């Protein structure tokens, strides 16, 4: 029974990946809308784009980590 509960918890933790997807989509969408307004400035900001994506993704990674721990460590 407890093992099954851990599986349910792992599934719930996977919702966090969807939340991270919203965050990453926000970053990329905002970058694109800014880049289309001023295309000449866009090339210099791709590094910032990737840093922003990485930071938004980090929280999704923690959700993934929780799911992994529930699947294999509990």
């Amino acid at each position, binding site marked *: 029974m407890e093992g099954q509960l851990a599986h349910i918890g792992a599934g719930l933790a996977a919702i966090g990946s969807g939340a991270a997807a919203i965050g990453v989509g926000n970053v990329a969408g905002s970058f694109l809308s800014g880049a289309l307004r001023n295309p000449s400035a866009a090339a210099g900001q791709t*590094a910032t784009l*990737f*840093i922003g994506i*990485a930071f938004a*993704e*980090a929280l999704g*990674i*923690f959700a*993934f*980590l929780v799911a992994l721990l529930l699947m294999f460590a509990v």
Partner: protein
Amino acid sequence: MSEDTATNGAETLAESGSGHGGDAAAAVGGSSHDIPGVAPSGLQIHPMEQFEPARLFGEGEIFWYTPTNVTLWMLLAVLSVALLMVMGTSGRAIIPSRAQSTAELAYGFVRKMVEDVAGKDALGFFPYIMTLFLFIVTANLLAILPMSFSSTSQIVVTAVMALAVFLTVTILGFVKNGMKFLGLFWVSSAPLALRPILAVIELISYFVRPVSHSVRLAGNIMAGHAVVKVFAGFAGVLGLGSVLPILAITSVLALELLVSFVQAYVFAILTCVYLKDALHPSH
């Protein structure tokens, strides 16, 4: 009629491939290939089985010094980087060969990234970041090859690299700035009442860095390869309809090509960001 023959064909394919459990030859039924711990119903190909490290020689336990498929593919990545760089720098022609222009492209790309993100005074760390980037990107690209092993999908491998970056950055911060490095956690632009709370948050986010740094790379590579394996399982079951999963596998592999480059880039660029924090800790 044609569907019947197709299923028969798939079954004989599965039976002939039963010995080594290859990529495309997914098992259809057949109790001979049940993986222990996996329910017999549903997918007969286990998507996470490909990430299990195995000894190269003989049987038995795996110690830290045992040559496994992880070490083999890491060695291959190192050898390919060395080969590219040796071939790229041996000619030094004015009109570069293909190897030379690839090597020059990689050099210029990483150097510009370090200069732009971490600043000119971090260029002493350029060889380190170049090594990290080239190793990760080569290991990722080698992992896309059929029947290969993805060494960067092992959290052990990425955790060692992330911990090395973390220790380097922390020690560098204290050596360069002394106790002023702690100013990284004391946000001087915030109101005084908020600063202790922010300090706790900054401290947590600082120590969580190696975790997200390593799990990001390993998780992305692992997830991509597991998706490919899941679609390979579909392809074995569907018979003639397996054209669809094979098309899906092709497009997922194209995405993997992008991901393996982007994740190496992100790993390197985050190293640059952490370096900049260590060199200029003021907020």
